[in-house]
């Protein structure tokens, strides 16, 4: 696969190139791939692996020229996770970083635009983390609707 040739590492997983990288090496890899024809940045995903106490960031890129999809995978510790921002390589990465910061609490160094994206007035734990119990949250917030009061006049 072209991406594996370019980066000289990685394996094929379900028809896609899957490359594991260190956090510091991602920017170089993304720039190298961009020059090598992988000019469509598909998306940036985050996976919470609670058992191994890690976040996995997955950078998806696609090459129209080689018709190939590559996933760059980075593991970050769940304690104070931080990652260099790539918003200057592809503009839309900034938005994904904003969302992941909000939903998983990962810091992206160099991205100053960390305004809330989907949530408003949220002070709890980042909600997409696996240890955030959305059912408990729902019961606490929405199960406490006050009962209809009886009208004394009738």
């Amino acid at each position, binding site marked *: 696969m072209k991406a594996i040739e370019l980066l000289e590492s990685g394996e094929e997983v379900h028809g896609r190139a899957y490359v594991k990288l260190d956090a510091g090496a991602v920017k170089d890899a993304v720039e190298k791939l961009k020059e090598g024809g992988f000019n469509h940045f598909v998306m940036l995903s985050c*996976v919470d692996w609670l058992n191994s106490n890690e976040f996995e960031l997955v950078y998806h890129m696609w090459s*129209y020229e080689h018709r190939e999809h590559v996933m760059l995978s980075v593991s970050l510790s769940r304690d104070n996770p931080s990652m260099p921002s790539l918003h200057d390589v592809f503009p839309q990465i900034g938005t994904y970083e904003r969302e992941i910061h909000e939903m998983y609490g990962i810091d992206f160094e160099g991205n100053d635009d960390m305004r809330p*994206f989907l949530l408003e007035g949220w002070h709890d734990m980042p909600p997409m983390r696996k240890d955030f119990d959305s059912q408990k949250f729902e019961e606490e917030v929405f199960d406490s609707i006050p009962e209809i009061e009886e009208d004394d006049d009738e």
Partner: protein
Amino acid sequence: MNEYELFIGPQHPGVTGNMMYHLWVDGDTVTKAECNVGYLHRGFEKLMESRGWMQNVPLVCRICVPEPDVNEMAYSMAVEELMGWEVPERASYLRVIVLELARIAAHLMSIGSYGGSLGIYTIPQWSLGDRDYLLDIFEQITGARVYHIYIWPGGVRWDMPDDLPKLIEKTLSYIEKRLELYDDVFFKNRIFFDRAVDIGRIPRDKAIEWGVTGPNLRACGQGYDVRKLEPYAVYEEMDFEIVKYPELGKFDVLSDGGDAYTRMLVRRLEIEQSISIVRQALKKLPAGDHLVKHPNWLKWKAPAGHVYKRVESSKGEYGYFVVSDGSDKPVRIHVRGPSYTHGVNVAETILKGANMADVSQILFSLDVCPPDIER
């Protein structure tokens, strides 16, 4: 001149769905635009992590209202890839029929909203009315009008009724006739030329870098379509050409591409193309099963792995990134909606310098669907 701040939305004809744009305006020129989403955030992705593989099927379609089937398709493709299931050929053909009918319905809706934003209210009335005939077909095939829950991992839910091809053909020829009227009233209308040409231009050399996909990308002269790049279902067997700038058929090329005019014409021409694909699929439809033999519905365990599957929706590349650890529930499902780039970065950039009166047209011409930003 004083600068004013203006809030468009969350309820405004500029976008289908609840979404807000915060504009800074100098006179009637937009100097800065910020997209504000979150009104539709329902936490689908989080919810999917706590439900079984099969239980997610009725959920995914609800992510996009105008075209729910692409969600079912991409999700099913990802699960099939993990499970190693081969979809029966008949099911693949039925999937193509449903997906293309859904594309026609979504494009009609998009054209209708654009017409409405120009004040040609005949167009939304017509196109939503005509879309209803397609929903009638969906009701016959799938039992539901909007959320079909038809494409399942391993095939489709039911086979279609025997007499349905007749109804489909009747509807398709009706829509073909109607398209001529749409052309007379809208696509060859002076107002459309005046208000759409050179409006909301995406620079053609920037389109790919900005992550533009689908009709918006093809309007920039890049003939890329997932149906051709990574053919899924049976698109490889179908004979169709990618509609792209500057090949606009019987319509005049009035701009350098990438503008609202070209984007809307690409959609208009894709309706004809989808009609032809549905006809081909009906003609070639083989006999056979419509679903693989499944293990117990509620006890599927998908082998561990990372899968990304993409399909071509009416708005662009729709992708599902599915991660499994081998258990009966997904670890993570990330949905790539095409509007994520179109509605946020692209819109914020191209709205700069636009006239106030063109803002809603620009947004409609990008065909932004807020739920696939928020999921």
